[in-house]
């Protein structure tokens, strides 16, 4: 079910990009289907921004293929750019132009923007478009880039940590507009560190590490690969719990048990608990954070080499 059935808007196969001796991308794969919001996760320095820059035709890949909207981003850059809008992670604007001027300049360069939506976005993001860009904070610079991208008439949004400087209220505005964009039929590639945002918005997620894709799929598929935490108070002890394959971190204190369990072993565990007489039960599905930590936790030491 995770195979891409609709036309792939982004299709990267075995992409390699080196900077001198440093291998930023080391055989990376990424598929994004039309109409989905795709979360792009990875620790700092994993190669997210490099991947995005190759996809945008700013950098040239050294090996492998990258297709975006069915085209080669390096050769057909302008054709690709007609149909997408991009918000970089570190938005840098011309210091002596006003926010409004920059929004309109980028809008025109993208082939025009929806004036009504522009006005609504400026209002909702509480952006003062008359201020010179040099006086904007990081969050306000991001708002300028977001307004011009979200007001553009495009098929694809490429967002590189677009909300790292926004407050929670603005974050909500952002999420509303991304959803509206998807409802209009748009596709989104969202690189983000804010896992709550990814859980809220994304249909599918790819996790990369050291220039390679380590996990890709829907959130429920990814959850399947990990464990649910369960804690319960029981009428009587259940020593046989420890024998069920897939049960981990079992702690028994009197009548209380807590454990984590592989998704595949949930059914036998629940049956076992039920027979012991459940007085209270709490179970929690794995959060994206736990998923994330499972992939990176083991390399906290290795990364610093």
């Amino acid at each position, binding site marked *: 079910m995770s195979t891409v059935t609709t036309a792939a808007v982004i299709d990267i196969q075995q992409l390699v990009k080196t900077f001198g001796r440093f291998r930023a991308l080391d055989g990376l794969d990424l598929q994004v289907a039309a109409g989905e919001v795709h979360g792009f996760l990875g620790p700092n320095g994993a190669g997210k921004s490099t991947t995005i820059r190759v996809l945008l035709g*700013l950098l040239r890949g050294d090996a492998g293929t990258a297709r975006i909207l069915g085209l080669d981003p390096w050769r057909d850059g302008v054709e690709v750019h007609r149909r997408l809008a991009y918000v970089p992670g570190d938005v840098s604007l011309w210091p*002596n132009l006003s926010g*409004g001027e920059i929004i309109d300049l980028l809008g025109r360069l993208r082939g025009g923007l929806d004036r009504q939506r522009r006005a609504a976005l400026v209002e909702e993001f509480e952006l003062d478009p*008359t201020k010179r860009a040099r006086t904007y904070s990081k969050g306000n610079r991001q708002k300028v880039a977001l307004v011009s991208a979200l007001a553009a008439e495009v098929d694809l949004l490429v967002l590189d940590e677009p909300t790292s400087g926004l407050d929670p209220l603005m974050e909500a505005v952002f999420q509303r507009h991304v959803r509206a964009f998807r409802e209009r039929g748009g596709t989104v590639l969202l690189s983000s560190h804010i896992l709550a945002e990814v859980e809220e918005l994304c249909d599918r997620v790819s996790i990369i590490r050291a220039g390679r894709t380590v996990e890709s799929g829907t959130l429920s598929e990814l959850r399947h690969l990990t464990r649910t935490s369960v804690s319960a108070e029981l009428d009587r002890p259940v020593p046989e719990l420890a024998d069920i394959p897939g049960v981990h971190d079992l702690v028994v204190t009197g009548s209380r048990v807590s454990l984590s369990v592989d998704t595949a072993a949930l059914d036998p565990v629940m049956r076992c608990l039920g027979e012991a007489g459940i007085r209270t039960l709490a179970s929690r599905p794995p959060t994206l954070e736990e998923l994330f930590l499972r992939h990176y936790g083991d390399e906290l030491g290795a990364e610093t080499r």
Partner: protein
Amino acid sequence: MTGTVRLVRAALRRDRWLVLWWTVGLVALYWVTAVSIPQTYTSQHALDQAAAALDGNPAYVAMAGPTRALDTVGGQVAWQVQAFGAVLVGVMAMFVVVRHTRAEEEAGRDELVRAAPVGRLAPAVSGVTVSLVVSVVAGVLSALAVASTGLDPADSFGLGLGLAGCGAVFTAGSYVAAQVAGTARGAYGLAGGAVGAAYALRAVGDVGAPVLSWLSPIGWYEQLHAFSGLRWWPLAVIVVAAAGTLVLGGWLLGRRDYGDGLRPVSAGPADGRLRGGLGLAVRLQRGSVIGWAGGLFLGGLAYGAIGNDVGDVIGDSQAVTDMLAQGGVSLVDGFYGTAAVMLAVIAAGFAVSSANRPWHEEEAGHAEILLVTRLPRRSWLLGHTVVTVAGTIIVLGAAGVGLGGGYVLTTREAGHALRIGASVLEYIPAVLVVAAVARFLHGWAPRWLPVAWLPVVYAGVVVFFADLLRFPGWLRGLSPFDRLALAPAEPVRWLPIVLLAVVAAALSVAGQAGLGRRDIG
């Protein structure tokens, strides 16, 4: 002031090349002047004649200062070098101080430094210190260099310490400018304007209103009377003024908010009318075009106004006659030919900084958001190229209008003025070649872009020193400016003009191709 010493060391290390070259340049100026005067005026008779012609001539007084003891080698050296040296040290101070204060603040690096346990004034003090070090070292070494040619040591030190003092005052002035302006660009403009104003005040003052000269540090420098009855007390005025201005800067620093100037930033339009790559390039560069055009217009005006008197001054100096009048052309035309090429070399500074602009746009991350729109790379670069070419024509045109205008003002001969003014335009292709070198480097090896300044410096060396240092023809010919006829003294030759234009176009096209092939940013 905690941390000051460490910051000064870091600043000196970061700027070691800048410090070295400014020092070498300033010392070389003083040394070359001291060496060349005896070569220009080979006898006391020649000196006497020059002094008689120059004495009290308002145009020369305005350009270089009061004419004192011009019948001596020392007097000539001091008179020729001091105003020019003071302006140069002022430009140095402007660059160094603003770079370490306002520019750091704007880049956000200063914020990191300030968050460390360093005093509020420490970052500024480190920039000011670097500039003061260059001023003093250059002043002392210049004094030694001048004295080494056999001139009086005390007067030589008067000349050198006056230079150091001017450096100190302009350092303090640039520090104040960095507090007043809200941006690095604004601070450069304000500090540079202050240097220009100091020169202009002294010019007007020396000609007819002595009080005005006392408002200018360059005026105080002249009042030291090096090699014409040296007196030391004006140096005290210079030191007090520098110290007082520094205190003012420190006080202003405490009165403004971090990241802001004293003048608030004005609001801009809520909607934009910028259309595309060209519109943006024009918008980004128009201030610089206007500034350079204005500066070169004034420079041309100054040269234009004095040229007609040139025959009176050096008419009997055989060396200069030989130098300027190869092939028996008129001295006046020879002077204007040299003036035109000097103005063109200065204009090349505009052209290179303009050709560097696209790379600064890349480095700042601006290109990244532009080049993911439907704006192709080549159109983006072409927009900037068009501005560089048009800007070059405007800047050289302004220099020509100034040169011709100055001539008309003093002689009322419109016909000849037109010929003199138009002679500057001959250098358009030479300036464009220099800009195209920058564009080529930008396309293929942007990290090497600072090398693009070398042709400008070299062209300047050829103009000022090639005769003195007896450069062979091929060495002179490496400067594109030397390939062209010295109009209006010589008839315009079209072949080199066309060839230079072809070279410029070829380098530009190659640079464009390079940009299409490399990674952005």
